[in-house]
């Protein structure tokens, strides 16, 4: 093989130029070329652009003064987050119940068909109680919140609000040693952490990009929102009067999101002080003009690109996971199923985290996709106890509290663990593709896991010490 670099004729010419020019003049060359281009652009623009001097109010500027002001910027962001989540929580409630009722009625029909056809019990269990039921759960629990949340999120995106969020949060991220654009990748994480990880490409510096990738998991993605919303509606909302139930549930979810953001900042700070040391780099953030959102585009993008994509992925993962869970729950060794056996062996450990063995099993089996954690948990509970069809929130409350002794603290621990634990399989795969490093993928798995274990463990200790539960 020949060595090209050193004897490339162009390199020789470049070296000649470098020899001829004194170094200080050499450095000025780029600037002079840029000046030449800028001067021409200015001249041409001066000739062809004319501005009519009409008194006009610069609305963009006025709106930006409010939205990005020190005083109002943050409260406005919180209010918007609250409104979006409240609309999602309240709006999703009713269609969720209707969907669940319809899908479980279909399950009864299917069961009837299987019995009529004289199919063996294991086939019925595998297909109907395993595959179909987890599918029905994923669809009924996930579809309504997504169908509301994604269009709202896309609307904010289309309006041009997200760059303003980045502007508001820039200071915090810089103080955490991270890149200001991380707030944008964080917002993308709301939709889907895998998408959030991909969007980290907008961060140029490899150090800051890695920080953004590793901490993206702390933002609840769409797969985890349903579990947060459902549990906070069942438990936190149940504690107050019916009229402000969804408001209370919203407040809990907003609190959890804020916890996620604070932990993102803390972990970013920690990473930039230890594994990924360095100073934050500067960047130019252009605040694009506000534009009238296009209804058609919002609907197409949020429904096709996001809702159906995420739902499709969830369904693809949920069906085999449902089958696997059913097999685990119905394979018996000495009168106890494999699932019960595994849950029993994890139970003592899980109690230290404020949860029980079944919950941990659900989180472990839910690694392929966070969407299926709740369905797996319920399947585990149901198959080990009496058969109940969880077609309403009241029934869910009955299963969790009545049969398995959940308290508000169990729910809180589950929600915190879900918020913090590890990214789903798809996200991990994406992280591997983006970083091309097994080491960072492993860190992306273990770092959030340790944070989740630490937080739930400390909280359980504290709550027990104070005698709150």
């Amino acid at each position, binding site marked *: 093989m*020949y*060595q*090209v*670099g050193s*004897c*490339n*004729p*162009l*390199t020789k*010419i*470049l070296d000649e*130029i*470098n020899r001829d020019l004194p170094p200080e003049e*050499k450095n000025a*060359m*780029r600037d*002079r*070329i*840029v000046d*030449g*281009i*800028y001067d*021409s*652009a*200015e001249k*041409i*623009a*001066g*000739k*062809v*652009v*004319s*501005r*009519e001097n*009409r008194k*006009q109010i610069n609305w963009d500027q006025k709106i930006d003064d409010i939205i990005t002001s020190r005083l109002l910027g943050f409260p406005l962001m919180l209010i918007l987050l609250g409104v979006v989540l409240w609309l999602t929580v309240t709006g999703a409630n009713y269609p969720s119940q209707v969907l669940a009722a319809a899908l479980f009625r279909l399950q009864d029909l299917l069961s009837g068909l299987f019995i009529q056809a004289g199919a063996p019990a294991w086939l019925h269990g595998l297909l109907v109680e395993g595959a179909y039921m987890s599918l029905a759960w994923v669809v009924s629990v996930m579809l309504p919140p997504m169908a509301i949340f994604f269009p709202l999120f896309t609307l904010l995106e289309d309006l041009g609000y997200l760059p303003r969020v980045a502007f508001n949060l820039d200071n915090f991220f810089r103080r955490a040693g991270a890149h200001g654009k991380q707030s944008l990748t964080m917002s993308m994480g709301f939709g889907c952490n895998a998408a959030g990880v991909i969007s980290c*490409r907008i961060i*140029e510096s490899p150090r800051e990009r890695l920080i953004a990738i590793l901490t993206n998991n702390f933002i609840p993605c769409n797969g985890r929102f349903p579990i947060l919303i459902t549990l906070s509606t069942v438990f936190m909302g149940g504690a107050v009067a019916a009229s402000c139930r969804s408001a209370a549930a919203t407040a809990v979810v907003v609190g959890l999101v804020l916890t996620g953001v604070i932990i993102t900042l803390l972990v970013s700070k920690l990473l930039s002080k230890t594994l990924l040391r360095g100073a934050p780099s500067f960047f130019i953030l*252009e605040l*694009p*003009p506000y*534009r009238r959102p*296009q209804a058609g585009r919002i609907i197409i993008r949020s429904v096709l690109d996001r809702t159906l994509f995420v739902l499709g992925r969830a369904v693809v993962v949920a069906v085999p996971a449902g089958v696997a869970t059913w097999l685990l729950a119905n394979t018996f060794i000495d009168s106890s199923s494999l699932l019960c056996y595994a849950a029993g062996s994890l139970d003592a450990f899980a109690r230290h985290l404020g949860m029980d063995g079944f919950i941990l099993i659900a989180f472990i089996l839910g690694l392929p996709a966070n969407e299926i954690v709740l369905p797996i948990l319920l399947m585990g509970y149901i198959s080990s106890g009496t058969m109940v069809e969880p077609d309403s929130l009241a029934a869910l409350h009955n299963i969790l509290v009545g049969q398995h002794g959940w308290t508000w603290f169990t729910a809180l621990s589950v929600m915190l663990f879900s918020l913090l634990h590890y990214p789903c399989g798809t996200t991990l795969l994406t992280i591997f593709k*983006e970083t091309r490093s097994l080491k960072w993928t492993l860190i992306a798995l273990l770092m959030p896991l340790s944070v989740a274990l630490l937080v739930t463990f400390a909280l359980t200790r504290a709550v027990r010490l104070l005698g709150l539960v």
Partner: protein
Amino acid sequence: MAFFKGACRKKNCWNQSVPQHQCPQMTIALAGNPNTGKSTVFNALTGLRQHTGNWPGKTVQRAEGSFYYKNKHFTLVDLPGTYSLFANSVDEQVARDYICFTRPDATVIVTDATCLERNLNLVLQVMEITPRVVVCVNLMDEAERKYIRVDVDLLSSELGVPVIATAARSGRSLDKLIDAIDRVASGRIKITPRLVTYDSEIEYLVQRIELKISPLIPAGLNPRWVALRLIDGDRGIIDSLQIYLDDDKKGSPQWGEEKILCTR
């Protein structure tokens, strides 16, 4: 005829009278600053005939789409949105390398009518690489709302390339844009781009270096532009050129000779 129809339907040109492999193929690059509505133009021109992937070896998204016009098949490649082509970032490098090495039949530069001056920097830089340029002055609707007027005909004569004023969000004048693309890509329009003249010292250097390098670089690559890059000390352009020539072994004979000399 029925056979042709069937063969065509597969390749997504069912409404065409000519099957795809018989249509002339054109490749068009779409460049522009961020936030100029570049994606809107891209979507409006290609509709749902799009696919996305990555630029080879880079974590930068690449979108490609296609459309038909006058029985020609146009492939539109969406370049990353950049403010310049100085290869300061991966995005800029990807955009620059595509325009100068893949040499599309035409390059469309989408600009923002409300801040044309900043956008012209990119236009002038692209014009230094290739004369086959169409300038799309987009967001005309927003400019009108802000009482900003752009004299498109004057701009066209100042730059020496076709300039089309559009409002891609509402689809205004996109047909004119497509027509201009077609005329530039098929060479049916005479383009006399007016390039930036630098200060006399740089121009003198450029002339000297141009003479030296023009036999060394592959035909089709603009020697003036390469000379400018060498003057501003961009070593990356040499590497990019090398990668390009390695990929395509039919490099100009001069490079081959030089390589043989090197092996000794």
